[in-house]
């Protein structure tokens, strides 16, 4: 990890004592004065990005103690997946992080493919990359809309959701539903890409660059936005690495670390894009990283549309992939395979893998253990939101209550992914 040395950071070094705390403890001296007010922030508060409950201890306007209570959205996805065949379990990871669904689906499918030892055809790889980048734009738009809304910029929400809807239309076109598409299957894609998708997606990508400029014009230079975000929620590079941060939070702290570059998966090594890095580690830099990533993702989408190869969209392996429909009524063997695959599922060789992708929130990992049967023995997701939430207390030093909203918003946590 190379720390970018373009500009000097606002503060260097660490303020984390060892062992690393994930809660902010009130100074005992302050508590004795008896001037501490304990406030429940959430779980049903519009500014908490979902059902996050923060127990905030205040000294006047100042946040002196902070404790996050998670688990309100726990649904037991990982345990449920153990009871489903791999084919059926593909529908589960999308619902863990419902904002970056396509990336979550990808990491699970990649894990299955790694255990099976199959390589999807190039068209599937390019399409997966394209959809994941569309999904990254979608996720950043949701982040920008809600995080700006929490700081009072209501119109950002309408602008962002206009583009988000265009992206969801594209997902509906290609995958059948707007959000949880289960379009990635082990071995490739569920269906071929329809012709109309290319035109619609190109039209979207052409407008998106200008739209990002519009968002920047609405926020970047505005006095209120700068007052609320500049120098707020500082996190140094050392602290970010010590806390295991990844994704935009880490890159806003000046660390050049993007799994798409350092450990390319799919075909990210064949496209040209840059990794935005900002040195200060405050809320404003996290915002800038998100904006630049949207631009870079648009670039990748354009290159993927241009470079999309022709050919099959799924591997021709009848032990894993459902046979073509027209064969079901003519070939007894296909029908038997179809019944076997649907009822029993494909068997995955014994072993364990850990696969990571760069989700919009950072390093998303899937740890998959197979005992050789048709169902996963254990699935564990490394959720970047959960790790980002751990940085809240460190970001919070000398913060006011109003900054708390900006900081929690800027860390871009999705509670579905935190609680799983």
């Amino acid at each position, binding site marked *: 990890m190379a720390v970018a040395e373009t500009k000097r950071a606002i503060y260097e070094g660490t303020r984390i004592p060892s062992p690393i705390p994930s809660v902010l403890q009130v100074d005992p001296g302050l508590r004795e004065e008896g001037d501490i007010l304990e406030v429940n922030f959430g779980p049903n508060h519009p500014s908490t990005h979902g059902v996050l409950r923060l127990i905030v201890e205040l000294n006047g306007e100042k946040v002196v103690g902070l404790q996050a209570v998670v688990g309100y959205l726990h649904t037991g996805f990982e345990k449920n997946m153990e009871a489903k065949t791999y084919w059926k379990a593909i529908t589960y990871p999308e619902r863990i992080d419902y904002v970056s669904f396509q990336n979550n689906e990808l990491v699970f499918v990649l894990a299955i493919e790694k255990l099976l030892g199959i390589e999807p055809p190039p068209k599937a790889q390019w399409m997966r990359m394209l959809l994941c980048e569309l999904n990254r734009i979608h996720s950043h738009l949701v982040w920008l809309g809600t995080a700006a809304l929490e700081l009072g910029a209501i119109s950002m929400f309408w602008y962002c959701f206009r583009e988000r809807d265009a992206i969801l239309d594209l997902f*509906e076109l290609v995958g*059948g539903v707007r959000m949880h598409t289960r379009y990635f299957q082990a071995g490739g894609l569920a*269906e071929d890409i329809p012709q109309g998708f290319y035109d619609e997606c190109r039209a979207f990508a052409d407008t998106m660059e200008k739209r990002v400029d519009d968002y920047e014009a609405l926020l970047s230079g505005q006095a209120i936005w700068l007052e609320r975000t500049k120098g707020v929620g500082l996190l140094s590079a050392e602290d970010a690495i010590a806390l295991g941060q990844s994704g935009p939070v880490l890159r806003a702290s000046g660390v050049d670390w993007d799994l798409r570059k350092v450990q390319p998966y799919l075909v990210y090594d064949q496209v040209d894009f840059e990794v935005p890095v900002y040195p200060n580690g405050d809320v404003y830099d996290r915002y800038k990283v998100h904006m630049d990533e949207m631009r870079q993702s648009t670039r990748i989408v354009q290159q993927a549309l241009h470079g999309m190869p022709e050919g099959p969209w799924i591997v021709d392996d009848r032990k894993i992939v459902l046979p073509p429909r027209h064969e079901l009524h003519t070939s007894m063997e296909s029908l038997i395979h179809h019944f076997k695959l649907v*009822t029993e599922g494909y068997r995955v060789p014994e072993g364990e893998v850990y696969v990571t992708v760069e989700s919009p929130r950072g390093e998303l990992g899937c740890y998959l253990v197979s005992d050789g049967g048709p169902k996963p023995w254990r699935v564990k997701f490394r959720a970047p939101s959960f790790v980002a939430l751990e940085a809240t207390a460190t970001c919070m030093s000398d913060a006011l209550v109003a900054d708390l909203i900006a900081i929690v918003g800027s860390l871009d946590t999705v509670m579905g992914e935190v609680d799983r």
Partner: protein
Amino acid sequence: MSPQPFDSLKGFAVTFRQMFKKPITQQYPEYKRPVYPRFRGRHRLWRHENGLEKCVGCSLCAAACPADCIRVVAAENTPGNRVSPGERYARIYEINLSRCIFCGYCELACPFDAITLEAEFEISEYSRDDLIYTKDMLLAEPVKRMPVADRDLYDTPTPVWKAES
């Protein structure tokens, strides 16, 4: 840290330009945007042209469902009561739409193209019990008609789940 007056004007310009743009609001209940042909909405069970049901009660859709929302109880066809062309038919066919996640695995699984997910998406009810759709409801012609976009343009020539045989 100090904002430039020019930056503020740039922001105002974006807002000002919006006045000359057409609103993107869709007047939803009156106007319905055509859904894309691959859209997966409410289920539909199909009949053959001679009136017999396509479903033969093999329960493959129930096996494929990740949410376990389909219940099929099969019964034997008799010469006096022939419901489907096969040996058996679905005596009970229920889909609990309050559990359904619209993944479309049932239509992928069905070897007889008996169940498909159609374009209808307005399926809210006042009671959860009303969301359990029985076989008669699924076989009936849907009351509401949803517009669907051009199938030739927005779908592959033969949809994976609907290739005729």
